[in-house]
């Protein structure tokens, strides 16, 4: 393992203000979720149902995408597919040129973060404005989202005050309420002037032909309704069969993400404005993005990672995320779900440490609304990196060490002797622990890593085996 990784982590862990920001925000989200849960049996029935629906849809994904496409197209929407970010950007740039558009407003979408859409559109000389308050803050700070649901989770109100004063040329305001007003004012102008509104999609409904957006602020409603053209960009895995399936998913998503029985706004959009309707966009485009999803789909062991509805609960409950925060993860998706899906998008040879950065405590799987076995997926990824003999992550000696260890573990007598030797080596005359008696040993990788922040347990005075034999001799054990 590259030691610089851990050093970087310890910078975040040692930053008291940042730790406080992460802990209090995730703590509140955990608390809000807990207080919004129904009776366990009811919740479990929702989770089971959601899982079944996702499983079924993904097993028949081509069918449902074609249904979605046919239904949306019949109502005047345009549906296109994109393999990766480049194709999405090309499509949007072409559309902008055709419409002579300059200004794009965007509502929060992890899918577009994933392909760095903003940068690509700026390259095409478009002005792109993030309109979700958290995303707006992150865009002004030129950072990437810290959290799937709360992009600016790491920023305190004072950070926001600094940022707004510096970038928006406004008077300093330290109250979130006042800061929100500033953002409302600035962004309202953008909404009314924008030519194209870009959104993601929380769900796509195949049989009905619809795009579903879930939000609290109203920016997704504005992005999808105020400009003449609405473009939704969605991963292909977002599709579900029927509108009726939404009942369960909406109940799960609001509660798991922010502890709301239902988020403030749920938009169900099935095409551009129809004849006679008073407002709404003239055009609706849906871009269905692959970007590595079909690779994950082909992996039967981990396909279920595509069930994810991006609620962020696994991040909030992850003790590792709560220590290291969102920016040490190599991709836009952080926390347990990020650790599982990132290797599929980047390949296991990139950032091979990722599946190992977990104590496998299972808190993520316990709260996942679609019951993704996240620790199980991490274990499989670890096996894959070992199998692929990915360098760097395992250290030169690890493979040898495990081979030797396994050899030893199959030879009980030698194992016992090894135990005795270690215990003898580590005990000095006063019977004190390892640390003082064998300082040279402490320079050895794992021991040094352990003892940087923890003491080693003192060796037992007598091994269990020795005690057991003494009991047998005294006849007590029989």
């Amino acid at each position: 393992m590259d030691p610089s990784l851990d050093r970087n982590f310890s910078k975040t862990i040692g930053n008291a203000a940042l730790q406080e920001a992460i802990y209090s925000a995730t703590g509140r989200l955990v608390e809000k979720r807990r207080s919004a849960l129904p009776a366990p049996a009811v919740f479990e029935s929702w989770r089971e149902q959601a899982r079944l629906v996702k499983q079924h849809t993904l097993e028949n994904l081509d069918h449902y995408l074609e249904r979605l496409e046919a239904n949306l197209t019949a109502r005047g929407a345009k549906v296109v597919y994109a393999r990766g970010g480049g194709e999405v950007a090309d499509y949007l740039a072409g559309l902008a040129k055709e419409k002579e558009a300059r200004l794009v407003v965007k509502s929060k979408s992890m899918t577009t973060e994933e392909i760095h859409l903003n940068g690509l559109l700026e390259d095409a000389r478009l002005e792109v404005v993030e309109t979700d308050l958290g995303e707006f803050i992150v865009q002004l700070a030129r950072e990437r989202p810290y959290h799937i649901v709360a992009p600016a989770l790491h920023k305190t109100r004072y950070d926001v005050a600094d940022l707004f004063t510096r970038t928006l040329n406004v008077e300093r305001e330290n109250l979130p309420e006042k800061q929100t007003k500033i953002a409302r004012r600035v962004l309202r102008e953008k909404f009314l002037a924008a030519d194209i509104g870009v959104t993601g999609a929380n769900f796509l409904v195949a049989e009905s032909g619809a795009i579903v957006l879930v939000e609290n602020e109203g920016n997704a409603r504005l992005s999808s309704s105020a400009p003449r053209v609405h473009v939704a960009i969605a991963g292909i895995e977002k599709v579900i069969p029927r509108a009726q399936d939404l009942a369960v998913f909406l109940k799960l998503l609001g509660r798991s993400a922010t502890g709301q029985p239902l988020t403030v706004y749920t938009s169900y959009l099935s095409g551009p404005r129809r004849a006679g309707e008073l407002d709404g966009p003239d055009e609706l485009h849906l871009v269905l993005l692959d970007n590595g999803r079909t690779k994950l789909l082909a992996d039967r062991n981990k396909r279920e990672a595509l069930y994810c509805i991006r609620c962020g609960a696994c991040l909030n409950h992850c003790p590792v995320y709560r220590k290291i925060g969102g920016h040490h993860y190599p991709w836009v998706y952080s926390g347990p779900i990020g650790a599982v899906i990132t290797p599929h998008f980047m390949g296991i040879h990139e950032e091979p440490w990722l599946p190992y950065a977990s104590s496998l405590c299972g808190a993520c799987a316990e709260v996942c609304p679609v019951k993704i076995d996240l620790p199980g997926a991490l274990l499989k990824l670890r096996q894959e990196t070992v199998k692929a003999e990915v360098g760097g992550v395992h250290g030169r000696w690890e493979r040898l060490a495990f081979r030797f260890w396994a050899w030893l573990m199959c030879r009980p007598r030698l194992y016992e002797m090894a135990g005795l030797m270690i215990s003898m080596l580590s005990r000095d005359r006063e019977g004190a622990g390892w640390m003082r008696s064998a300082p040279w040993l402490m320079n050895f990788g794992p021991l040094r890593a352990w003892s940087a922040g923890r003491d080693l347990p003192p060796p037992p005075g007598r091994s269990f085996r020795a005690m057991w034999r003494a009991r047998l001799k005294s006849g007590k054990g029989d």
Partner: protein
Amino acid sequence: MSRDHVLHRIRTATGRSAGQPCAEAPAPLLQIPGVDMQARIQMFAQAIESLAGKFHRAPTPEAARAYAAALIPETGAIASPAPLLADCGITQLPGVETGITERRALRAACARAGLGITSADYALADTGTLVMLSSPREARMISLLPPVHLAVVSAANLLTGLDELFTVLPDPAAATSAMVLITGPSRTADIEQILVRGVHGPGEIHVVLV
């Protein structure tokens, strides 16, 4: 073309061939509790108030009109051409603009107005939700741009919750290009997880049940 490429990759990953029939999807999980109207109304009122919304029960159309009249600010109000609002006499109130059909003009009027008045096609009792279908009688912007939203709902359309909504309306796309569920005032907690109302949508919401 990317369409064929992506679909081909999907089929390869799932072991399916083009046009292969699909097994029946799992039956939807919809459970409608038996709740009488009185209890529904109580539940609805409680849910709205817990979201910092204002709930008012109007025994008569005149009472609804009086409630609306008291809310109209100096900046004026914009009302949708919904029959229920006309029946209550709300669209005829002084300071209320209505009947704008040109989109840009409507949007500008909404951006100016201090109050947006709409009806709602349905309401959900358990979550305090308004269900609005975009139509010639209801615009998207009136419930969105003004800082205050007043919705007048007929008690006959008060459903128990999401499960009943999707039972009554199994395919919203058949009815409208845009259905929006509104549950309380616009809000955010993006800064320090501290709740702030009125981000991009209305910060204040009033529901009158007729």
